[in-house]
């Protein structure tokens, strides 16, 4: 007793810590708890992805058990197909058109709902409704409102002679705008929620200090609000880009890709290949291409995100 630390530590010969020869029961329980997730992820994600990749290299019809290895033939076939470039460009127009509109709706509305006014919290709740309703309901109501003979908007477009077709979803020039609008109507509240949450974290004192320093409202927005929203805008932008890119329901329900392919995006194009033409192999090849495009876009967003993080930290 009563040694100096150095002396005590020198005298104490460390025993070989049994590096978990026998794992404690506690840790075994921990591993057991992880098992379901691991099994499910292997079964429900890894295995299907492996399958889809292998399907992409096979000649494979939807309902037939036979398949033959065809190398890159499926990729060649889908890429040179006349519908491919069209659906790629449609997808990008749909994705980024929707993103722009969702941002344009989401940001100002979030700023507005961040102000103080009576009934604010019920209004915030109701603002989410369009995000909560099923896609089928969203598509149905808009289709109904523009339907001939029964649609209220259809009637008013005609009655007021507005410079747009009374049935935009059937119009060559307006169908894309129509699906972009409905997709944005459905999904902009997601942006509102996220932006509101971020706005609430901004320290009020920053604004007070700025207004004492004589900053105008516009300058306050530009110098305080916007920079603090920028990183989250990138994250949300990435999420929505991916989700818009993957979106199948809106277009499928409103136009099914028509008229004459004007709104056919890649998910619909894949769906048509597989369930219309029963070519599972070609659909899989397309899906793999889509997957890699998404991967590249995510990487770009990630780089942007990291750069803003550096700038504002």
């Amino acid at each position, binding site marked *: *007793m009563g040694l100096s*630390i150095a002396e*005590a*530590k020198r005298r104490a*010969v460390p025993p070989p*810590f*049994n590096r978990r020869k026998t794992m404690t029961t506690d840790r075994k329980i921990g591993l057991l708890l992880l098992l379901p997730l691991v099994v499910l992820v292997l079964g429900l994600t890894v295995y299907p992805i492996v399958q889809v990749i292998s399907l992409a290299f096979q000649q494979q019809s939807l309902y037939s058990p036979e398949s033959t290895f065809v190398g890159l033939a499926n990729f060649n076939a889908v890429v040179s197909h006349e519908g491919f470039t069209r659906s790629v460009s449609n997808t990008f127009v749909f994705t980024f058109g929707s993103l722009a509109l969702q941002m344009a709706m989401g940001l100002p509305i979030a700023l507005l709902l961040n102000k103080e006014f009576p009934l604010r919290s019920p209004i915030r709740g109701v603002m989410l409704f369009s995000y909560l309703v099923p896609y089928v309901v969203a598509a149905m109501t808009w289709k109904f409102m523009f339907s001939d003979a029964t649609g209220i908007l259809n009637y008013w477009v005609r009655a007021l002679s507005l410079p747009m077709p009374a049935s935009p979803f059937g119009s060559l020039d307006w169908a894309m705008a129509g699906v972009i609008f409905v997709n944005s109507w459905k999904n902009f509240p997601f942006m509102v929620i996220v932006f509101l949450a971020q706005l609430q974290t901004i320290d009020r004192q920053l604004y007070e200090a700025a207004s004492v320093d004589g900053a105008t409202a516009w300058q306050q927005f530009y110098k305080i609000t916007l920079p603090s929203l920028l990183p989250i805008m990138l994250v949300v932008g990435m999420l929505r880009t991916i989700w818009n890119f993957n979106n199948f329901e809106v277009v499928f329900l409103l136009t099914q890709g028509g008229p004459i392919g004007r709104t056919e995006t890649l998910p619909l194009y894949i769906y048509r290949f597989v369930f219309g033409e029963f070519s599972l192999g070609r659909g899989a090849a397309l899906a793999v291409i889509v997957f890699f495009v998404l991967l590249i876009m995510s990487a770009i967003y990630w780089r942007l995100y990291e750069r803003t993080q550096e700038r504002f930290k």
Partner: protein
Amino acid sequence: MATIDIKAIWKAYGTHPVIFGIDFAIPDGAFVVLVGPSGCGKSTLLRMIAGLEDISSGEILIDDKIVNDMPPKDRDIAMVFQNYALYPHLTVKENMAFSLRLRKEKRATVDERVNRAAEILGLMPLLDRYPKALSGGQRQRVAMGRAIVRDASVFLFDEPLSNLDAKLRVQMRTELKALHQRLKTTTVYVTHDQIEAMTMADIIVVMQEGVIMQLGTPLELYDKPANRFVAGFIGSPAMNFFEGGIQAGIFVTEGGLRLPLPVAGEAYPGGSVTYGIRPEHFTVDAAGVPARVLVIEPTGSETQILAEIGGQEVLAVFRERHALNPGDEIRLLPDTEQAHLFNSKDGERI
């Protein structure tokens, strides 16, 4: 009632050891305080006794039974956590009854034991409240209540008072001590506050960096600190130290200050030495060393004086009142019987 034996206990996180083969035994009914600066491994050791932390090597015995692989619930221990860890979704009463209900005690027994504990701790009016509606001191009491209804054979406390304000801390200290005297349950109490250790402990274990620096009763530690670390850690205000060497039976610093030696030091062969003297062991005496008064702090019961001796600041405490002013030149005489010598190299007591 129980004894606890700690035998060559090591703890490593990964391969990085934080407890270095600690040994000691706790007799039945003792109040043992583990004290040391924060990060020295007190909580880790306590949690190993509780069964919340794996033991890397060595053995812990409770009542002569090895408990290394025994889950906490079978060790018959009760523990009070630093942040109390009250179940937020249960009322005070339900919190205290939690362990008894788990043991499927009869309703009447549960009520009776909870009520008795609540009475001892003055919690009767709060029984139906939720923890978030309690003050810090009340939460502390509930945490203690939860421990005492158990009738466990060992109590473990991990810095239970450190979140209370100073006044409440002193009050709870006394209550805890009284509780122990009443229940006589073997207790291990962790704190970084040496005053808590001195006032409450039967046995103090001073730790630093995962090693026991000294084990003993409060007065042993105060009177005969085994090394410079313990000497500096125990006692408030802290001991004064001078660095120097021994020449012809006298302690001499580099600055030429000469201090009389305690008996033990006179035969010391040489080398550099640390001379320690507690503030309360100075007297104002014409035979002392010259000192210049810098600051005077009377507290009523005693007077603290910060003085300069041989170019070094020294603290002295007097029970009697001296008419002194800053700047006064006085002579301070250390009580050689109460002076301590340490080897400067390894800090060991000489």
